[in-house]
């Protein structure tokens, strides 16, 4: 029984498609006068954020509130945690408060796993160290599917004719994965939880994933991952339907991962010239926050190919879908596949 969402590897293809389809149905909520559903009324959702991340926390908070859940925000600064309270003791406090779900962001890989051992409710991993960030991968997959699969048409689902073409397009993607799409993820894969979750989830959904990075920023064991590897970004661009840029921290330069920001940018940065070499339909993504001018040029970030802004809106919708499927019933529905 799926009680938690800690790693993208927890999701089978059926699970992932169900989440995307559910998000698709919830997306129209944003256009309604009453942006609320009663489904999680009476449930308590706790945001346990040890790392400063207003953006992700607000996304989860909005998602929970739109489903009528009660939200409690627990941020590490200035709390007993800052005074050195252990993760275990914090977990026990949350248990005593009757949290139905805890959404945790933490600087240590594995924190979500540990928490799951100490609370009875559901644990949603909002990013643990350099391990995983599964809801980011889900919203990325949702964004890709909406932009690129809708026109191809999906399978299954009942089509209801309507003059609103974009809705038909979106409805057409229902039931579909990302089969055959080629996604290139660029940047500091070694330290990226977004990269790990995306490699797992996108390949589960049938996409072909390629990692493009200098060898120092790829884990030694990357050969065992379900993706290809390239040290040459330029050769990957003409074949890519999606280019996903990862944030590169300038401090990595001091640990000798690359010689200078300038050289990194020159070899792996997505500037306007590189963007022009992408196929016409290709999209550019970034989980944020961006280092404009390092991994991504300003004009690329602001171009029509860029999905950076809609990724934010899709984040709320996708997180609503996850919260509903985990907490709305007695358990996450079985999709007939084993993970």
């Amino acid at each position: 029984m799926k009680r938690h969402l800690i790693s993208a590897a927890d999701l089978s293809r059926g699970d992932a498609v169900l989440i995307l389809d559910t998000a698709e149905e919830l997306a129209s909520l944003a256009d309604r006068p009453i942006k609320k559903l009663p489904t999680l009324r009476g449930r308590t959702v706790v945001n346990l954020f040890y790392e400063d991340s207003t953006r992700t926390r607000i996304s989860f908070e909005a998602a929970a509130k739109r489903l009528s859940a009660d939200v409690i925000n627990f941020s590490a600064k200035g709390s007993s945690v800052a005074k050195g309270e252990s993760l275990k003791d914090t977990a026990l406090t949350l248990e005593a408060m009757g949290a139905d779900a805890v959404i945790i962001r933490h600087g240590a890989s594995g924190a979500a796993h540990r928490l799951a051992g100490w609370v009875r409710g559901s644990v949603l991993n909002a990013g643990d160290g350099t391990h995983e960030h599964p809801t980011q991968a889900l919203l990325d997959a949702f964004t890709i599917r909406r932009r690129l699969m809708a026109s191809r048409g999906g399978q299954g689902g009942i089509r209801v004719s309507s003059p609103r073409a974009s809705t038909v397009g979106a409805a057409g993607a229902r039931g579909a994965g990302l089969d055959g799409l080629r996604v290139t993820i660029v940047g500091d894969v070694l330290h990226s939880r977004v990269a790990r979750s995306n490699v797992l989830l996108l390949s589960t959904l049938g996409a072909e994933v390629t990692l493009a990075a200098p060898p120092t920023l790829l884990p030694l064991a990357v050969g065992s991952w379900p993706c290809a590897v390239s040290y040459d970004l330029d050769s990957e661009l003409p074949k890519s339907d999606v280019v996903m840029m990862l944030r590169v921290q300038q401090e990595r330069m001091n640990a000798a991962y690359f010689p200078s920001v300038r050289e990194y940018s020159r070899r792996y940065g997505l500037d306007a010239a590189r963007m022009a070499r992408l196929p016409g339909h290709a999209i550019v993504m970034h989980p944020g926050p961006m280092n404009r001018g390092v991994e991504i040029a300003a004009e690329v970030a602001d171009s029509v190919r860029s999905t950076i802004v809609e990724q934010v809106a899709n984040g709320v919708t996708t997180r609503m879908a996850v919260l509903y499927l985990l907490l709305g019933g007695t358990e996450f529905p079985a999709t007939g596949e084993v993970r």
Partner: protein
Amino acid sequence: MTGDGSWLIRGVTIPGRDEKATSILIAGGSVTAIGPDLDHPGATTIDAGGLIALPGLVDLHTHLREPGREDAETVETGTAAAALGGYTAVHAMANTDPVADTAGVVEQVWRLGRTAGHCDVQPVGAVTVGLGGVRLAELGTMADSAARVRVFSDDGRCVSDPLLMRRALEYVKAFDGVIAQHAQDPRLTEGAQLNEGEMSARLGLAGWPAVAEEAIIARDCLLAAHVGSALHLCHVSTAGSAEIIRWAKSKGWPVTAEVTPHHLLLTDELAAGYDPVFKVNPPLRTEADVAELRRALADGTIDCVATDHAPHPVEAKESEWAEAAFGMTGLETALRVVQRAMVETGLLDWAGVADRMSVRPARIGRLTGHGHPLTPGAPGHLTLYDPAAPAEAVTSAGASKSRNTPFAGMELPGRVVATFLRGVPAVLDGKLA
């Protein structure tokens, strides 16, 4: 108590002698007679049918934590755990607080051991002052002290400066000392959490590459050969390390090595749930490493098993992985793990176990009173073990103050029945005497 203090152990098998059951008479602190039909009127008799007798085990690598970390372990509780594990002597590592880098601290530890009385405690002296890796500690003074230190180690830290390592190796030749190196290049392992490999990549934990151990081992073997001094390698954990040691020994170089029980049985796959009970330095590695380490122990490339018993209080092992302390307990389970990993697999017989867990470690540690094969005249250090005891799940509750055993819940064979120290039982029927 009735009798004259002597003990007659009946029906026991001594591996390495003929495999028939025999009897052992212990009196006056020594083994006085061995034979099939011994009798001694004043002796207390032990019916040891089905048991084997090993010379008292000797651990070259234990952390007793006292002075300084008595919340994790004391000399009293650590040596009690050792005796329950069949040990009659343990080498207490120097990374205490204060560090054992002076005669004063090593003599304190030595005295605490004698007072506790469960097993002999041989203090290990630090190589450098405060384990700082900068200046040699007063190795000669520690050697001359009541503790008679012969093994020196900065364990916990690597003596990474090649010049300092050379000097230390040369200096201890004067008093037949040996430098025990914790091989870990600090620059290659900054912030390292887990063996660098598929698991570390998947789990998002900073990797501890095998080469960081192997490069130091290769360097130090060459140094030991160059200056002609004894080098001992602590807790060897990789297949590559074993191969380098095999090569060094083939050249006749004065190198010895130890392996822990956990590195003979466990792999980094256990880290999947991020339970820090599996966090240890050096880290658990892969199946291939475990297989090669077993082979190397079997053919003698690795000389002995040493527990690296590293107790930690509960809160140090209950947090997220990166925050948790490195280390596993091991004294009470060592012999059972070795039975599972080496005897049950047919790689080593019990005579070989006696050699690797008593004779050779005593020789490497220059402990003249221990590690004697059981013959008339040998000191009365002896372990009675039941290899046929039904496999039982390991509990984390034992004599050690700490609970961080990676074997909790695992079914392991065998049972230590009795441990004799200088002819007096420290453990009888599996309990402290």
